[in-house]
C-alpha cells in the first residue's frame, strides 16, 4: 500500500509461505493412518484371548481377498472376524463420526467449547435409551434392540426441538441455539433422571449406555451406523467452504456469498445425523468430538477442507486406541478412557499452544 515499501515484498514470498503451510496436513494424515492401522490390528489381536499378530494380519489379509494359506485354528477366525473386527471398526467409525460432528458444530456455532452433544443430542439419546430399557417390550432384530432405535431417534428429535424453538426467539441466532440447546438438554436430563429413578433393577443397563462402549458391537450394528456416518461426513465435507466462511461470523459469511440460513440448516442436520448414528451404537462417549478438532486445527490451521477429513482420521485412530486401552484392565467404559487420555493431552496442547497459536 505504501508506495515505497510495497515493492520490497514480492508476491512470490507469500505464495511460498502459503505452500509451505500446506505440507503439515500430509504428515498428520500419514501419522493418523499409521496409528489407525496399528490400532485396528492391535485391537483385533489383543483381548481376553490374545491372537498372535501374524495370525491377525493373515486372517484380515485373507478376508480382504489376499491369497493367504489358512494356518490358524477355526476359533482364531471366529474371534478375529466375528467378535473383534466389528468392535474395532465400530470404534473407528464412531470416533470418526464424533470428530467430524464436533468440527461441524464448533464451526457452525463459532464456539470452541461446542461438541457433538451441545444441541441436546446426548440427552435425547440417553432419554431414548432409558425409555427403551424400562418399557417392558422386547424387540430385537438383527442385533438391534429398541435401545439403539430410541437412542438414535431421541438424539435427532432433541436437536429438531432445539432448532425449532431457537428460531422463535428474538435472540441472535447462535446465542439462541446454544441457550435453547442448554435448556432442552436440561429438561431431557430431568426426564432421564426420572427414568433412572423408576427403572429399578434395570438401572445398570441405563448406566451402561450412559458410560458408552463397544462391547456389544456387531456386524449388523456396524452396517447400520457406518453408512450414515460415512455419508454424513462426506456431505459435510462438501460444505467445508461454508464452514470456512462462517469463521468471521454470519454476516461476513453472507458477504462472501454463503446462503447462511440454508447452509446452517444443512450442516446442523448432517452433523446431528452423524452424531445420532454414533451414539446409537456406542452410547455417550465424551471428549472425542471436543478435542480432536482442536488438535487437528492446531496442526493444520482452520481450513475445514483439511480439518474435517483429518479429524475423521484422528478421531478414528484415537477412539480405536481408547477402546483397546479400555479392554486391558477388563472392561472399563471407553468414555472414562477418552476422558483420562483426552483431558491431560488437551491441557498439554493448550500450554504448548500458548507460544504460537491459541485454540
Amino acid at each position, binding site marked *: 500500500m505504501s508506495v515505497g515499501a*510495497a515493492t520490497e515484498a514480492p508476491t512470490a514470498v*507469500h505464495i511460498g509461505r*502459503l505452500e509451505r503451510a500446506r505440507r503439515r496436513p500430509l504428515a498428520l494424515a500419514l501419522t493418523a493412518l499409521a496409528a489407525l492401522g496399528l490400532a485396528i490390528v492391535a485391537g483385533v489381536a489383543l483381548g481376553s484371548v490374545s491372537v498372535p499378530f501374524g495370525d491377525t494380519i493373515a486372517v484380515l489379509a485373507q478376508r480382504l481377498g489376499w491369497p493367504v494359506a489358512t494356518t490358524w485354528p477355526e476359533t482364531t477366525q471366529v474371534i478375529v472376524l466375528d467378535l473383534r473386527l466389528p468392535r474395532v471398526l465400530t470404534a473407528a467409525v464412531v470416533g470418526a463420526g464424533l470428530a467430524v460432528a464436533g468440527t461441524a458444530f464448533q464451526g457452525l456455532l463459532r464456539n470452541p467449547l461446542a461438541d457433538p452433544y451441545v444441541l441436546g443430542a446426548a440427552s435425547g439419546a440417553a432419554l431414548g435409551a432409558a425409555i427403551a430399557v424400562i418399557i417392558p417390550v422386547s424387540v430385537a432384530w438383527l442385533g438391534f434392540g429398541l435401545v439403539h432405535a430410541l437412542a438414535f431417534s431421541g438424539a435427532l428429535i432433541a436437536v429438531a426441538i432445539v432448532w425449532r424453538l431457537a428460531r422463535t426467539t428474538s435472540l441472535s441466532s447462535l446465542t439462541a441455539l446454544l441457550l435453547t440447546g442448554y435448556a432442552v438438554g436440561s429438561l431431557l436430563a430431568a426426564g432421564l433422571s426420572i427414568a433412572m429413578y423408576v427403572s429399578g433393577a434395570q438401572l445398570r443397563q441405563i448406566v451402561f449406555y450412559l458410560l458408552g462402549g463397544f462391547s456389544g458391537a456387531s456386524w449388523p450394528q456396524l452396517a447400520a451406523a457406518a453408512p450414515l456416518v460415512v455419508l454424513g461426513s462426506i456431505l459435510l465435507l462438501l460444505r467445508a467452504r461454508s464452514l470456512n466462511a462462517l469463521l*468471521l461470523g454470519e454476516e461476513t459469511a453472507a458477504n462472501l456469498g454463503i446462503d447462511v440460513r440454508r447452509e446452517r440448516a444443512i450442516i446442523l442436520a448432517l452433523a446431528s445425523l452423524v452424531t445420532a448414528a454414533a451414539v446409537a451404537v456406542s452410547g455417550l462417549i465424551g471428549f472425542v468430538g471436543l478435542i480432536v478438532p482442536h488438535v487437528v486445527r492446531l496442526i493444520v490451521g482452520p481450513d475445514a*477442507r483439511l480439518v474435517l477429513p483429518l479429524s475423521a482420521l484422528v478421531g478414528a485412530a484415537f477412539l480405536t486406541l481408547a477402546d483397546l486401552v479400555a479392554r486391558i484392565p477388563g472392561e472399563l467404559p471407553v468414555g472414562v478412557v477418552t476422558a483420562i487420555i483426552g483431558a491431560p493431552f488437551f491441557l498439554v496442547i493448550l500450554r504448548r499452544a500458548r507460544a504460537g497459536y491459541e485454540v
Partner: protein
Amino acid sequence: MIAPTIDHADRATAPGVDPTPGASTDGYELEGLGLTFGGRTILSEVSLHIGARERVAILGPNGAGKSSLLRVLTGHAPDHRGSVTLDGRAIASYGRDALARRLAVVPGEVSLPFAARVEEVVALGRVPHEDPLRGLRAADRRAIGEAIEQAGISDLVGRDARRLSLGERQLVVLAMALAQEPRTLILDEPTVHLDLRHQVEVMTLLVGLNERQGVGILAVLHDLTLAAHFFPRLILLDRGRVVADGHPDDVLTTERIRAVYGVDPAIIGR
C-alpha cells in the same frame, strides 16, 4: 482533529460524479428507500444514483442511518421500502453468491472463534471464486498474495490474526475484501482503529483502486477531513435522510455541519 499534511492538488484530478449521469444502469439506483426497524424509522425517502466506478463517502452523526444504508446496499435488509437496484437489477433478486462476486464488504468489527493465520483469513476472500472442493488454486493464491501486498500487511503473514491489534486486524479484513476482487468495495469505517499514517495509506489505497483499476468505493467515514480530502463525492445523512450530496466543498458548509452535528466546525479545522 488534525488535518493530514498532504497538498490538496490531487483533488482536482479526482474523477467527479459520472460525467454522463443516467447514461448507464451500472451501479446503484435508489428510489424512495425507506427502512423501519421495530417501529423506528431508520431511513426515509433516500433517492440516490451511485455509479459503478464512483468513489463516495457516506457521512453523518451516530444513528444517522449510515450503517443501515450499507446493510440495504449489501442485501442484508430485504424488508426495505422503495426500490434499490444494482446494475439495473433489484438487490433482492441477487443470490448471495452473485452479490459476493460483484461486491466486497469490509466489516467494521470481526472476531475469530479459532486461531487463524493472517493469510488464512485473507484467503477467505476467495470463497466466492474458489472451487468448493479443490480449494485454492494458483489464481486464488496470486490474488491472496496481491491483496496482502496491497494492504501492506506482508510483515503480518504467518501470525495469528487474533493476536493482532485492532488496527492490524482492520488491515487484514481489508486485504480479505481485496482478495475478493470486487467491482465495488464497501467499507464500514475502515480507518476507525488506524493511526494517522495508516489512515492516509488506506485512503491512498482506495483512491488508487478507484482511479487505476476502476473499483467503485463506497465508504462510511466518521472523519470529515479524511473524507473531504480523499473523496470527490460525499453523501451526508441525518436522521435517516440525505441532507447533502455532492462535492465536499458544497456538502461540508459551516452551517450544515453546525446543523447536523451540533458542533462549531472551527473545531475540525475547516
